[in-house]
């Protein structure tokens, strides 16, 4: 070889190939199966790992440089937010319910993705996806950490934040998100990538991060808006990874198509069920709204999702199996979830409330065919009870869906007056589901879903045996963190502090 040869100028693609693809080698002393033991068992056939396309070709030097710039901007904003009592800039402290729910449910999911992507970044047998997944792994720990740091300042002044670690593992509603991410992590590497990289990131995170974070900004919460958008700038890479991964699997072997279709069906449904919580955040928890859940769904779900599935049709991929059921549910779920959270508010580490007169006007306008007809009467009933000095609570324990772990509170897709309930018997036991979608997911892999840890039955078993006070201690739920917003310490403090800082 000719040393001191003047180097040619390499283009980005060529340079990236040399700097990553070319680092790996074909092992000859050990069998590939020993190094990558989990890459086959899901049945996905890969003939040529080098066919993997990297859309964003970040080498580490560029990664460090640009990510450091994002970090500097981000911490400058949250430092200023902490120093200047930025929490008093939010429109109304009831908004904090949304970010409590976020810290308890979504941030642990970011962490789980971090670990999951490290695993698949090790298990894939091609260096292209390995490096892409490792980069996502390190991004995801960034998201978990920036979220904890943003919430840390709210924790200093408000209830409901400080026990997020224990509540992640124990309180009933966080198992909705936890079971979703545990489900993905306990799957094989290819399914994990479809679950998180494709269904969650590509199809669904826009719904979580884009309109909701824009709403956070609109409600004066620059800390949350900033971590949201800053995280989403990494998501743009992650979504692209998810899409490339799915195209890669579909192009490698026609036998992969039905497997991938099955996973798309499953994870689209799982993701949509998880996002019903975001629906409630969008429609009920932002005091000033940017758009309704329905409007967000039309843009990021219908328009964008359809574009994606039209694109994938060339491989023979069909839109997700329960798409129509999701579409039918969009005008209902936020109301059903919020009514559920409100009636079980004694058991949540966040507050809920009945909609105000102006909330009701907005909801009527955004949900002209459903809100006034089906949900307003229930809210009016709750409001009347409150006005009569009572409280609208449901101390009965909700029956949880074995798959998504939400209470079975959704209605039949074609009959909003009828609660949906499905049952499947498996090895002599009866299992309950909130929907056809969740029942279908269970029936594909019952041996997996029978293992689910259901927090409600746990309350009845050792060591709690139905003792509600003991349960509250076990889940670190202090009475000040739960219940009606109107009577909360958070509201009283927020109003008092706002008064101190306001001048006419």
């Amino acid at each position, binding site marked *: 070889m000719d040393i001191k040869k003047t180097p040619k100028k390499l283009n980005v693609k060529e340079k990236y190939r040399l700097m990553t693809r070319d680092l790996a080698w074909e092992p000859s002393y050990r069998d590939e199966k020993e190094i990558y033991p989990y890459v086959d068992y899901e049945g996905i056939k890969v003939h040529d790992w080098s066919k993997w396309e990297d859309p964003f070709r970040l080498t580490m030097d560029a990664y460090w440089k640009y990510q450091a710039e994002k970090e500097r901007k981000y911490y400058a904003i949250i430092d200023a937010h902490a120093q200047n009592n930025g929490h008093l*800039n939010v429109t109304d402290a009831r908004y904090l319910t949304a970010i409590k729910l976020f810290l308890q449910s979504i941030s642990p999911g970011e962490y789980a993705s*971090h*670990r999951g992507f*490290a695993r698949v970044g090790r298990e894939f047998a091609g260096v292209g996806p390995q490096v892409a997944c490792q980069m996502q792994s*390190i991004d995801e720990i960034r998201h978990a950490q920036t979220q904890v*740091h943003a919430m*840390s300042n709210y924790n200093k002044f408000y209830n409901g934040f400080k026990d997020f670690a224990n509540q992640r*593992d124990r309180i009933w509603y966080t198992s909705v998100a936890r079971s979703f991410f545990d489900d993905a992590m306990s799957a094989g590497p290819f399914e994990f990538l479809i679950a998180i990289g494709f269904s969650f990131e590509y199809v669904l995170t826009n719904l979580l991060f884009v309109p909701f974070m824009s709403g956070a900004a609109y409600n004066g919460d620059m800390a949350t808006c900033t971590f949201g958008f800053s995280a989403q700038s990494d998501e743009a890479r992650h979504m692209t990874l998810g899409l490339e991964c799915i195209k890669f699997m579909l192009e490698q072997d026609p036998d992969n198509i039905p497997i991938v279709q099955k996973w798309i069906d499953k994870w689209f449904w799982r993701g949509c069920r998880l996002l019903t919580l975001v629906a409630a955040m969008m429609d009920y928890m932002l005091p000033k709204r940017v758009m309704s859940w329905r409007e967000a769904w039309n843009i990021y779900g219908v328009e964008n999702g359809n574009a994606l599935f039209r694109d994938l049709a060339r491989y023979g991929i069909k839109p997700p199996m329960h798409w129509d059921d999701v579409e039918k549910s969009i005008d209902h779920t936020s109301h059903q979830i919020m009514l559920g959270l409100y009636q079980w508010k004694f058991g949540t580490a966040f507050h809920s409330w009945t909609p105000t007169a102006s909330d009701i006007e907005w909801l009527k306008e955004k949900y002209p065919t459903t809100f006034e007809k089906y949900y307003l009467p229930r809210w009016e009933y709750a409001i009347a009870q409150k006005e009569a000095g009572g409280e609208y609570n449901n101390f009965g324990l909700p029956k949880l869906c074995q798959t998504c772990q939400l209470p079975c509170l959704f209605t039949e897709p074609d009959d909003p007056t009828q609660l949906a309930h499905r049952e499947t018997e498996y090895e002599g036991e009866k299992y309950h589901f909130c929907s056809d979608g969740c029942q279908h997911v269970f029936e594909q892999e019952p041996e997996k879903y029978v293992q689910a840890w259901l927090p409600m039955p746990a309350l009845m078993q050792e060591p709690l045996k139905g003792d509600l006070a003991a349960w509250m201690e076990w889940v670190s739920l202090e009475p000040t963190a739960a219940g009606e917003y109107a009577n909360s310490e958070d509201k009283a403090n927020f109003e008092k502090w706002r008064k101190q800082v306001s001048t006419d």
Partner: protein
Amino acid sequence: MQIDVQTVNIEQKNQTFTHLKKRFGDKKIPSRYQEASYDLQAEENLHYRPTWAPEQELYDPNLSKIRMNDWYDLKDPRQFYYSTYTLNRAKQQETMESNFKTVESLNLIEGMPDPVLAVAQDLLIPLRHANYAANMNNTLVCGYGYGTVFTQPCVYHAMDNLGIAQYLSRLGLMIGDVESLEAAKQDWMDSDAWQPLRRSLEDLMCVRDPVEVFIKQNFVLDGLLYPLVYQRIVDQNLVEQGGSGISILTQFMTNWYLESKRWVDSVIKTMASESAENKAVLEEWIDSAANHFTSVLLPVAGLAVAGNQADELVSEAHDELLQRAKKAGLFK
């Protein structure tokens, strides 16, 4: 209405999150490292067993022979969380970028004696493949290790290894364009000097005990390789022969080794002091791997220096490694 939120002093309800208060009390506000690291991994009520290994838990401390009462004892003395890690590396990257520019603008490569360039080509460029293995091994530890304070630095370490492989690739492109990388890969795959190391790394990539991988990769192999290659051969031998330009381009590796060994040593020290059983396991791993990798690296050192001197340098590195092990409380 005017709101002037800066001026008021509001009394705080909580100093910190409960899980941090339990660990550190609430006298002091916890650091961002503590907030970002402790108890982030789910502990209880994991929903499903892995379909890829149903005998395991989703997070399973029993994947290792090492036992810890609390894996969160294994803190990183550098206190790296994503932000501090990234800002640090960005700064080092800026220095490296200007180093590359300096070497380029002063034509330092062209002015370098041929034997120096030959050593850079034969010894340094193939190492990028060893860094790839280290990247994979650290990714495994991050994925399957237990407890965030132990696993988190491993993803940073994995990405650092990728970064080092990329710095070496740039060096190769500077000294011999794409052909440099091709020749180095050929050496890695076929030449006698590299086969023992490649075989050992393929073996290590088959190990699934995350702590064993951590010890053998980050303590033993790197603990021999970096003092040997970067501290001795590059920064001494090559510099003496007119190869300062090479040393400038491997500055990141030299500094990175000095920085990260504080972390690696502290992890080992904490594990060893936990129990006699841990100590015995660590000693067994380190003893066998240190002897093995010392012999593996001998032909690699031989690419740069004559046989006798190679023996000498390798055994110096071996002694240095055992000194570190002793300081961490092992072998006594």
